[in-house]
C-alpha cells in the first residue's frame, strides 16, 4: 500500500517517522514530500496513484503551500464525491500542542479524516500499531470500493458491506440497516468508511471488541485459552467486513445466539462466576480464568468496559461518559468510579456526562471524607 505523506518539515524527524512505519509492516510504502501550491498539489494527486494520504496539520509553515490539511482534505473529499478523484483514506498528524490549539477546538473538520495521530506519542512510540492501521484503512477503502462497483442499479446498500448472510442480517436493528435511507443512491466510499469505522467499529453495539466480549463472558482476556475461544470457537461470529484486518470485532447477536443455544440462560442475568462456569462447559476449554472486578465489592454483572482503564464494569457501578448521543442500536460508554476520580482520565479528554454531575459531586465528597 502506497501512502503520500505531506509535511512542510522535510527534516530528520519526518524521515525517521517514514522509516519506522515502513519497517513495521511489509508492503507499506510511504512517499514523503513538501506540499506544493494548492493547484499543483491537486494536479499531483490526480496524476499519481496512492492508496492513502497522511497530512501534517500545518502544511503552510515551511513550504509554498498557502493552505492547511483541512482545506486540502475537503477539496479531495469533494472531488472524490463528484468522481473526479480516487476516494482513499486521509489521516492527519501533528504535535499535541498544535492539535489542542486548532484541531480539538473545531469539530467541523474532524469528519474529513479517518484517523488523527500524535507525531511523537503515536507515529514514533506506537509505530507498529499505526502502520497496521494505515494498511487496514487502505485495504478497507479498497474493499468498499470493490463492493460498490459490483452493486448494480441504485447502488449498494449499507448492509452489503457487513459481510453477513441474509438470515444473519435479520438480527440487526432496522434503523442501522436503513441508516442512509431505504434507497441510498451512490454515496462516496468515504461516507461508508467513516460510518463503519466511527459508528460500528469504534463504538460498540452490533459489533463488540475483544475487551467487551471478554467482559460479557466473565473471562479474563489474558487467560491461556482466551484466543482459542474468540478466534476458534467463536470464529463464525467474527466480523468480516471492511477494516477487519486490524480492528478485530465480533457480531454480538451471533455471540448471543451461540450462548443461548449452548447455555439456555441469558448471560446478562448471570454473575461473572456463573458465566465463566457455563462458558467452560459450552466451549470445552479449561484454561479460562475469572475476570475479577477492578474494585472490591463491584458488581460482576459486567456489560461494558471502563473507557479509561479498559477493565470490565457493570454500568450500575459506572458513570456515563460525555460525548455524542448514541444511536438507538449503540451502547453507551462508562467510566468506573476510580477513573472519574483520577486526574489522568481528564487529561485523556474523557469526562463524565453532564447528567452525572450530582453523582460525581457525591463521589468526590465521599472520597474527601474518608
Amino acid at each position, binding site marked *: 500500500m502506497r501512502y503520500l505523506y505531506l509535511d512542510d518539515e522535510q527534516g530528520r524527524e519526518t524521515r525517521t517517522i517514514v522509516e519506522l512505519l515502513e519497517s513495521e509492516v511489509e508492503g507499506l510504502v510511504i512517499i514523503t514530500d513538501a506540499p506544493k501550491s494548492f493547484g499543483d498539489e491537486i494536479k499531483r494527486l490526480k496524476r499519481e496513484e496512492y492508496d492513502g494520504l497522511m497530512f501534517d496539520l500545518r502544511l503552510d509553515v515551511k513550504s509554498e503551500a498557502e493552505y492547511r490539511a483541512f482545506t486540502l482534505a475537503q477539496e479531495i473529499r469533494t472531488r472524490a464525491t463528484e468522481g473526479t478523484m480516487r476516494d482513499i483514506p486521509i489521516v492527519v498528524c501533528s504535535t499535541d500542542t498544535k492539535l489542542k490549539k486548532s484541531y480539538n477546538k473545531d469539530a467541523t473538520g474532524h469528519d474529513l479524516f479517518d484517523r488523527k495521530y500524535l507525531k511523537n506519542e503515536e507515529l514514533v512510540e506506537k509505530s507498529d500499531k499505526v502502520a497496521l492501521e494505515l494498511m487496514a484503512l487502505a485495504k478497507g477503502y479498497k474493499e468498499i470500493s470493490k463492493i460498490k462497483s459490483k452493486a448494480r442499479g441504485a447502488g449498494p446498500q449499507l448492509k452489503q458491506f457487513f459481510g453477513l448472510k441474509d438470515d444473519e442480517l*435479520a*438480527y440487526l*436493528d432496522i434503523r442501522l440497516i436503513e441508516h442512509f435511507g431505504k434507497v441510498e443512491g451512490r454515496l462516496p466510499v468515504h461516507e461508508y468508511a467513516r460510518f463503519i469505522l466511527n459508528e460500528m467499529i469504534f463504538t460498540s453495539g452490533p459489533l463488540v471488541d475483544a475487551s467487551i466480549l471478554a467482559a460479557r463472558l466473565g473471562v479474563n482476556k489474558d487467560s491461556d485459552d482466551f484466543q482459542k475461544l474468540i478466534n476458534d470457537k467463536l470464529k463464525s461470529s467474527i466480523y468480516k467486513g471492511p477494516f477487519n484486518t486490524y480492528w478485530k470485532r465480533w457480531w454480538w447477536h451471533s455471540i448471543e445466539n451461540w450462548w*443461548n443455544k449452548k447455555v*439456555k*440462560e*441469558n448471560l*446478562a*442475568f448471570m454473575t461473572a462466576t456463573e458465566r465463566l462456569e457455563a462458558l467452560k462447559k459450552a466451549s470445552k476449554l479449561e484454561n479460562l480464568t475469572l475476570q475479577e472486578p477492578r474494585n472490591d*465489592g463491584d458488581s460482576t*454483572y459486567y*456489560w461494558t468496559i471502563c473507557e479509561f482503564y479498559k477493565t470490565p464494569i*457493570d*454500568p*450500575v457501578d459506572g458513570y*456515563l461518559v460525555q460525548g455524542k448521543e*448514541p444511536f*438507538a*442500536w*449503540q*451502547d*453507551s460508554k462508562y467510566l468506573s468510579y476510580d477513573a472519574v476520580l483520577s486526574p489522568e482520565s481528564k487529561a485523556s479528554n474523557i469526562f463524565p*456526562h453532564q*447528567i*452525572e454531575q*450530582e*453523582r460525581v459531586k*457525591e463521589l468526590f465528597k*465521599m472520597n474527601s*471524607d*474518608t
Partner: protein
Amino acid sequence: MSKASKKKYRGEVSDLIRKFGEALKAKKVLHDNKVFEDAAKQCQDGLCPVIAGIKIDYSNSWGYELRNVILNIPQKDKAKGIFPTDATVNTITFSAKVVGNYLNGEYAEDPFAHIELNIIALGKSKNGDDMRACWHFDRHLQSKKDKNKPIDSHPIYHFQFAGKNLVLPNNNYGEHLVLDTPRIMHLPLDAMLGLDFVLSNFLGEQRNVLSAYKPYADCLKEVQKHFWRPYIHSIAKKWDSYANANYNWDVNEICPQIF
C-alpha cells in the same frame, strides 16, 4: 394464532417497550435506554427467554428480558423512612423476565406464562459501606396436585421483600433479622408496569412528570388495559352483575397507578 399474527403481536409489544424506554430517557429519568432497545429487539425477533424449571408452551409464547435498568436517586428528594437514618439510597436497579401467551380476544386467560421482577435498592452507610434492599415480584402457579405445596399463602401474582437477592456474602447481615415475608397479592406487573411501580414509590416527583407526558401515559394505558382488565374483571365476576351499580369510590384512590 397464525405466524403472521404472532409476529404482529410481538411487534406491538416491542413498540411499547421501545416507546416506554424513550419516554424515560426524554424525561431524564433514565440516561441509558439501550436495555429497552435490546428487550424490544428480543421480543420482536421472537427470542423468548427460556425459563429453567417451569413448564411453558414456547410455541405459544412471546417474551423478553430487561437487564439492569439503572435509576439514580437525586439526593435532594431522597427516599424517606430509611433505616439506619444516616444511610443513603443512591441507585435502584430493576430487571425483568417476562414470558406471555399469545391471546385471542381480550378476556382470555392469564396473559403471562412467567414473570420475574427484581428491584434492588443500593445505598451507602454512614461509613461508606455498601447497603442493599431487595424486592421480588413473581408469578407462581401451583398445581393442585403438588405434594410440595407450601402451607404459606401463594397468590399467583405477588410481591415479596428480600427473596434470594438479599443473600449477602460472608453472612454479613449485621443485626438484620431476615425471615420469610408474606407474599402480598398485587396486580400483575410486566416490566413496564413494574418499573412504573418503582417510580411511583421511590421517585414520585419524576413519576409525576412522566405521567403528564403523553407517550409515557399512552404506553401504560395500553399495557394496563391488556393485562389488568382481564385480571380485575375475573375477580369482579365472582359477584353478581355490577354493570349498573352506582360506584362512587374513586379508582385512583384504590389504585393510584391506573391511567
